């Protein structure tokens, strides 16, 4: 759905909505007028209690944001990407071998998920066991800040969410993580006074939350789009160097993050409407990424499209800080499969979207 007006009031939810590319871009790039301290979802932290303590990097504005972002930028820089890429390539080749030996498998749970869960969590330095808890935590984090959050939670949900919140909290402690690695570096930044100890603890949470299911979800999405648009898969097989672009185009086509939240920082007039201070705005980047005013044939998935500037990772000061790592992970895994020489096809079994709708839930493929 795309409204052609620049900005509209979504009565049922009580938020503003932007659906077109140029207005979306304008909002996301203007952190003076549109801030993040109101929360990263529909829930408005100026008007209701957050489900969890707000993110110290994603749900804050400058100058607090600048301090924490700077630390993450340093740790997720192109240099770190280079350091991680040999490992990623080795894991990607292992994944191909696994797929070959299985013959029929679910790409999402057997390939993409374990691959990604061995990269950032290892780099941060958390124990290997029970990493599934991160994914469960994210499920509740989304639930807690989105449209359905006021519906009663079942006892099972309350119990499970408390368990994973405690687990994540435990993982963020300095004595849970290895003494070298990105997690340790975050605490060293606190030692040096760049950020507080509490912020360091919270940034570990950000790392784990952000560097997992969105990434293996996006990789699985891209694989689904490739295999279901056979000529595009053939193009990639003929030229595996397109893998990075194939991943990015997948994000344009259907990003795991379909929406990005902002709040007004002051009362203002904007494109003909009057907004109150601290009104919430939902930028529908999934819609903007299909805007025909910005993209030729937007509803076509094309591996060789010039796709820089797509909005699926956000832009501006809150643009995904891990995007270079994510692109590298996507490039390595998709590239390994494309250059494997295997015949790869969609499986007979039914493909499914995840319950959250954010990404593929099950992607049966055959590999021979």
């Amino acid at each position, binding site marked *: 759905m795309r409204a052609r007006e620049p900005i509209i009031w979504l009565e049922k939810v009580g938020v503003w909505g932007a659906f077109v590319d140029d207005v979306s871009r304008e909002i996301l*790039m203007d952190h003076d007028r549109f801030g993040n301290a109101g929360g990263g979802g529909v829930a408005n932290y100026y008007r209701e209690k957050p489900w969890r303590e707000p993110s110290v990097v994603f749900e804050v504005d400058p100058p607090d944001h*600048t301090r924490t*972002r*700077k630390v993450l*930028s*340093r740790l*997720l*820089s*192109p*240099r770190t990407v280079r350091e991680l890429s040999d490992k990623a390539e080795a894991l990607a080749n292992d994944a191909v071998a696994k797929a070959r030996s299985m013959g029929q498998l679910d790409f999402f749970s057997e390939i993409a998920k374990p691959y990604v869960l061995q990269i950032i969590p290892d780099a941060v330095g958390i124990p290997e066991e029970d990493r599934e808890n991160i994914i469960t935590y994210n499920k509740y984090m989304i639930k807690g800040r989105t449209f359905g959050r006021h519906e009663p939670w079942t006892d099972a949900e309350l119990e499970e969410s408390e368990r994973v919140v405690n687990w994540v909290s435990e993982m963020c402690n300095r004595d849970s993580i290895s003494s070298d690695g990105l997690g340790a570096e975050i605490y060293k930044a606190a030692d040096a006074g760049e950020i507080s100890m509490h912020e360091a603890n919270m940034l570990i949470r950000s790392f784990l939350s952000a560097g997992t299911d969105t990434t293996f979800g996006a990789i699985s999405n891209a694989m689904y789009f490739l295999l279901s648009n056979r000529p595009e898969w053939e193009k990639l097989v003929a030229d595996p160097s397109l893998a990075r672009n194939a991943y990015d185009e997948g994000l344009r086509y259907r990003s795991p993050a379909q929406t990005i939240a902002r709040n007004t920082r002051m009362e203002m007039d904007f494109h003909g409407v009057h907004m109150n201070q601290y009104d919430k705005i939902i930028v529908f980047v999934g819609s903007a990424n299909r805007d025909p005013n910005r993209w030729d044939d937007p509803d076509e998935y094309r591996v060789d499209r010039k796709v*820089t*500037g*797509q*909005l699926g*990772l*956000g*832009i*501006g*000061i*809150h*643009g*995904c*800080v891990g*995007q*270079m790592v994510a*692109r590298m992970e996507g490039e390595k895994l998709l590239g390994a499969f494309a250059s494997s020489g295997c015949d790869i096809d969609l499986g007979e079994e039914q493909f499914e979207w995840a319950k959250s709708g954010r990404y593929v839930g099950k992607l049966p493929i055959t590999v021979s």
Partner: protein
Amino acid sequence: MHSDGHVDEVEADLGSSVMQAAMKIGVDGIIAECGGSAMCATCHVLVDPEWQAVTGERNDVEDEMLNDTEVPRQDNSRLSCQIKVTEAMDGLKLYIPS
């Protein structure tokens, strides 16, 4: 100006970034993979010394990222996504590092 001497003349919208203006006409050497999030260091430019005052100071995150450019940073290095276009920049001279 590029290392081989050829010059791209760019028209920029006030309030957009120098990177966005460069991307509009596809200036060689400005890749801007992260779309302006100060995360990729692929929009690296060198500001002509005469214009450094007008383009202003590097911000903290930008300064961090400039340690990771493909061509090593110099005193007049900037990430072009962090330079906001103003009226005073009419005639701004920038060099693509090589």
